[in-house]
């Protein structure tokens, strides 16, 4: 129980003093996870939109596969990316192992299914509203996807948020492909794992509280954005 009190103390101390290591770790966490979410959006949103718009044999199976991929264990993804990036593996010569790029790559793979699945649902809802109108205007499937994606932009923020939540909170993938190297690939979650393994539970909890605060801040920012969208009835 005293660890909780000590944890709040640690979190406060780190924040107030703007501890250099903390700032570095938070900055890297954001870079890696935001980069992963943006990359996942570029890939996952068109996939989700295409699945919402197109009708093809096997679509049901594709949806089941997509929903299942949302449950990919991070540590498994980490292992697969590691095997690909290892010097002994196919992408070894790229020298990406133990770099933030590898971490972004692994998290992107984790996040694409979520972004795609949530996008699909959002776009499908919007398609119901728009479909006939777009058809009488002579808009084809590609145009429909582009229009639905843009018009659903505020709702799609929810997809991005879901993806970001998954990315910023995972440790299994980034610790394997990143190596938790001090000042290079140490992020919030791997730092928490490290401090826990050193028995410094108060510090680990303190970092955890800061990570939680980060997630809250991001969610709040998205809510503000959605609200401005609502005012203009763009949402």
């Amino acid at each position, binding site marked *: 129980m005293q660890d909780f009190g000590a944890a709040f103390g640690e979190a406060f101390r780190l924040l107030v003093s703007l501890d250099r290591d903390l700032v570095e770790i938070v900055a890297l966490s954001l870079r890696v996870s935001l980069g992963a979410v943006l990359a996942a959006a570029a890939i996952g949103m068109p996939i989700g939109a295409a699945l919402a718009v197109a009708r093809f044999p096997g679509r049901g199976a594709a949806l089941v596969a997509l929903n299942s991929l949302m449950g990919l264990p991070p540590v498994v993804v980490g292992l697969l990316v590691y095997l690909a990036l290892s010097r*002994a593996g196919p992408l070894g010569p790229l020298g990406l192992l*133990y770099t933030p790029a590898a971490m972004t790559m692994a998290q992107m793979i984790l996040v694409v299914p979520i972004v795609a699945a949530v996008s699909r649902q959002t776009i499908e809802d919007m398609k119901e509203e728009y479909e006939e109108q777009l058809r009488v205007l002579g808009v084809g499937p590609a145009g429909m996807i582009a229009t639905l994606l843009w018009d659903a932009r505020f709702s799609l923020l929810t997809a991005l948020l879901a993806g970001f939540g998954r990315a910023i909170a995972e440790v299994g993938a980034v610790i394997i492909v990143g190596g*938790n*190297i001090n000042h290079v690939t140490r992020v919030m979650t791997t730092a928490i794992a490290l401090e826990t*393994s*050193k028995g410094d*539970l108060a510090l680990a909890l303190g970092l955890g509280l800061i990570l939680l605060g980060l997630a809250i801040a991001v969610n709040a920012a998205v809510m503000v954005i959605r609200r401005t969208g609502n005012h203009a009835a763009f949402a």
Partner: protein
Amino acid sequence: MRRLGLLLVAAAALLAPITGAGAAEKFITVQSTTSTQNSGLFDYILPVFTKKTGIEVRVVAVGTGQAIKNAANGDGDVLFVHAKPAEEKFVASGGGVARFDVMYNDFVFVGPKADPAKIAGGKDAVKALQTIAADKAPFASRGDDSGTHKKEKRLWKAAGIDQAKASGDWYRETGSGMGATLNAAVGMGAYTMSDRATWISFKNKGDYSVVVEGDPLLFNQYGVILVNPKKHPHVKVAEGQAFIDWLLSDEGQKTIASYKIDGQQLFYPNAKK
């Protein structure tokens, strides 16, 4: 569609500094163990080396088995672990150039104040293990094929006990690093074996203390190996060798010896002159 393009450019811009960073600096990757990392040794000695040579040392700290496997895959320039038989096998198989003694620390047994097996104050590791087995006192093992784990297994063998049979009963294999195993041991009131360095810097001791120490069987030898550039041409030979040379040099050895926690020296340099 223009917006999508903007999104992609933004993503690339975000990623660019990430991929670019570190490519220009001089650095080597060292595969080492979590126990060495957790002891704080690297945080102490590496800045000295970097200041002298300008070479950054990036340590990937995993279990011994994983470190050796990573080095065998070529995912590192230097291997720095404490499992002599496995290290020699690594060199013999052509994975490394040559092995050198660097330093040793020792292992200790730790246990709760309650001391169910009454082994506190002992100096005989084998006898302590036999008592623990006879009393079926809970014992937490790392169970992860690490240097620590291999050492522990050899001790059980010397004690003539088949501890694996009791796995899940009084013998609990956590399959984790030293810190996690210590957490688990303290949590379930079990004895465990830890390297002294990790134990001293461990912050969740509860009411635990050292119960057995000083037995020569508990000494833990560290070795350093350059990953074989013939097998992995990308290995940074010059910088990696510079690191090894420094570890073995008077300055490196002195730096290792001067690392203390709570006034206690943790690592004893013993490179061959």
